[in-house]
């Protein structure tokens, strides 16, 4: 019994309008030719041109991408290991502390994480720069990866792994040949999540960065503190565009895969009956 009632349609429409209108307006006004952002003075793409010619932004974008690729890859490896330990590790000493450390960073205020990491880096005499941002980002995003991957591992049929072990696989081969292909979608979405978290982070990067490595959010922050800027609107539009295309593509791929899996299942059932 699923009918769309008027109440539900209204609450969804208003809710999504609230979620999307600000972004739509931001995109719209990035094509405004006026420097005054709230006064419409005709269509223009000149702010995109200014943005591309702005080398400080380009440099920051390169640093940000470098940090995001390295930290999300490390976070995916560590986070998948942590998820495996939590779901399949059984009992070991300090398990409670371990699961606490995996879940706590998810809700820890960024100012505390940033401050504590900075004080650590100063304490051990590590120069602040790309390396320290990578270490910081890996630490908090591995926890997100671990949550995503462990939710997949929990629903995963353990007898498949046991069958592989019975048939002579080593535990490592069983993981590589059976478990990993099945949890791969979760691992990939974990990587993507870690990547976007790293691209997005302002507070932790502000604490752990050095003078030579400014990331894009830090650059955006110093620009928007002075008020609305059309260049930032253009940059935001590009970022929103990339994310939108990515998310839509990912959901189409997963939909395609589900449909295909259903077809395969039906074909298999026809074959056996």
């Amino acid at each position: 019994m699923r009918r769309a009632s008027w109440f539900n349609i209204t609450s969804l429409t208003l809710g999504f309008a609230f979620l999307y209108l600000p972004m739509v307006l931001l995109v719209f006004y990035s094509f405004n030719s006026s420097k005054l952002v709230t006064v419409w003075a005709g269509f223009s793409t000149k702010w995109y041109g200014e943005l591309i010619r702005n080398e400080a932004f380009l440099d920051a974008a390169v640093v940000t991408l470098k940090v995001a690729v390295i930290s999300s890859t490390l976070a995916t490896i560590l986070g998948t290991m942590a998820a495996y330990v939590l779901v399949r590790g059984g009992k070991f000493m300090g398990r409670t502390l371990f699961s606490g450390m995996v879940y706590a960073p998810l809700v820890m205020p960024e100012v505390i994480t940033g401050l504590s990491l900075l004080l650590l880096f100063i304490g051990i005499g590590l120069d602040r720069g790309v390396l320290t941002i990578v270490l910081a980002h890996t630490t908090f995003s591995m926890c997100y990866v671990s949550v995503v991957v462990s939710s997949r591992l929990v629903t995963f049929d353990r007898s498949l792994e046991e069958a592989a072990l019975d048939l002579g696989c080593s535990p490592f081969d069983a993981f590589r040949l059976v478990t990993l292909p099945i949890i791969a979608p979760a691992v990939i979405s974990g990587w993507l999540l870690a990547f976007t978290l790293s691209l997005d982070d302002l507070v932790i990067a502000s604490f752990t960065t050095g003078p030579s490595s400014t990331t894009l959010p830090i650059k955006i922050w110093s620009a928007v503190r002075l008020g609305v800027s059309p260049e930032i609107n253009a940059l935001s539009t590009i970022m929103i565009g990339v994310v939108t295309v990515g998310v839509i593509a990912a959901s189409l791929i997963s939909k395609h895969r589900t449909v295909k899996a259903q077809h395969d299942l039906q074909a298999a059932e026809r074959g056996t009956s």
Partner: protein
Amino acid sequence: MNIRRFILIAVPYAWLLALFFIPFFIVFKISLSDLALAIPPYSPTVKDGIFNMLSAFDFENFTFLASDDLYWKAYLSSLKIALISTIFAVIVGYPMAYGMARAPDEWRPTLMMLVILPFWTSFLIRVYAWVGILSNEGLLNQLLLWLGLIDAPLTIMNTTTAVYIGIVYTYLPFMILPIYAALDRLDESLIEAAEDLGCSRTKAFWLVTVPLSRNGIIAGCFLVFIPALGEFVIPSLLGGSGTLMIGKVLFEEFFNNRDWPVASAVAVVLLLILIVPITLFQRNQQRQAEADT
């Protein structure tokens, strides 16, 4: 013990110990030291000898926090702002989650994607989008003036109202998703049974649907309340000097006043305040995980 299993546990364990757990003790240590004109800008340090360092520690920074009005007010106003925003997020988020759970099956993947999409979009940009809307000559005031609803522009930017809007807006998906997950699992025959037994639709909603989605509401509230409490970007960008929040105070203490010991003390107290909701949240998550298996 198998060596592979040992490595599997030890590597992520050691990483989190070194980069998440131990740093808290360093923050605590520095909160006990004094501001100094040195690099790093606090004293004593380990270089002064362990014994000298320990004997020079005191709780001066904490008594300073307690005596200065600014910090008390900042903690209280953060709690208030986080609490009120959480309530608004439930009011906005619950009907959306309910609408999604009741939507026809073929709509659901699209609706789900629409909720998740803002997750992937830059947090900073989503907060920034409101600057152009809420400012005095912004789009909201232009619209209201044009409609004739107001005669003079409303001051929303740089007030607490703007911070509420910002928090509800950015954290809304965190509220919707757990409530939706709870409502999606809900057995609809229970509602039908309540209606068959003479409940009105509204009554069945309050007596059956809401209690059964309680875990989702609780999870959503924690996911909004806890990060909102230490929020820095939203009060700085939308609240301006008109809002006092502890995350902002900590950031400014560190970067503008360069007083590391006081900033550390602020962090220690914030952490102590957060221990209660974080423990409750983890217990709620564990209970839910046990209920699922």
